[in-house]
């Protein structure tokens, strides 16, 4: 049934579409709001060099993204988690920016 197809990544500014089971529609606004909140939290804690909190938030985001079927969120959060473990500020900052952009562009379609 559901076949996720790898397609070229959307260019900046272009919408990325995620198809979601209609039964999950009531949960989706909170899910997306919380992911945006996570980005803010990680930016704030990164500014304080608090890698432990960045790692913790990224881990939660990785799981939530996976549970809801947002593979791109999971992918970026996994990268941030790994970078936080290594104390790699520039990678975290770069991936947070990508994540922020993705969350602002993603379009959820219910089926």
């Amino acid at each position: 049934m559901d076949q996720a197809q790898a397609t070229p990544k959307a260019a900046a500014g272009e919408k990325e579409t995620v198809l979601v089971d209609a039964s999950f529609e009531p949960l989706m606004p909170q899910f997306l709001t919380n992911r945006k909140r996570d980005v803010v939290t990680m930016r704030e804690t990164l500014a304080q060099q608090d890698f432990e909190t960045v790692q913790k938030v990224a881990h939660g985001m990785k799981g939530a993204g996976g549970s809801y079927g947002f593979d791109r969120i999971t992918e970026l959060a996994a990268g941030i988690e790994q970078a936080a473990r290594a104390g790699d500020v520039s990678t975290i900052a770069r991936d947070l920016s990508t994540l922020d952009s993705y969350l602002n562009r993603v379009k959820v379609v219910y089926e």
Partner: protein
Amino acid sequence: MKQNILLVEDEEDTSTLLKSVLEREGFSVIHARDGRQATTLVETIRPPTLVLLDLVLPYVSGSELMKVIRQHPGWQHIPIIVVSADSYEPDIQRALLGGATAYVMKQTGSKVLLEEVRRLLPASGRTTPAPALAGGNEAAKAPSKRRPAARHRPRGSHKKDQAA
């Protein structure tokens, strides 16, 4: 009578989703938000039919909690499905050897998890099914292209998220 599932998950949206999916399937869900709360439940409530357990938890880790469950009379034969975002093979094997009955990755979606719940429930109350280690990773449900909750385009991948 409804079958009870103890869900141990600290991430709010994930627990909301899993609770919703399980309740829709007719299960009664007891939710613990961290390892300490779950430990208290193990000491105070009747054993559930099944436990869904995240590994990375505040206060008491999922691995430590599995030890508590496996040593507790009445709980030691309850099936435990580890539901984790991590797909690092040694971690999966460690969880299976540490008391998990099965290991399901969050990326596989709720349908795979429900299949695993249904596979294990008929055996509950009799014996704990042996960890499925055949093939090295049989019990671990790897991310697949099947997306029961959602389909995503483009699909990303991360080396650490690929099951061996």
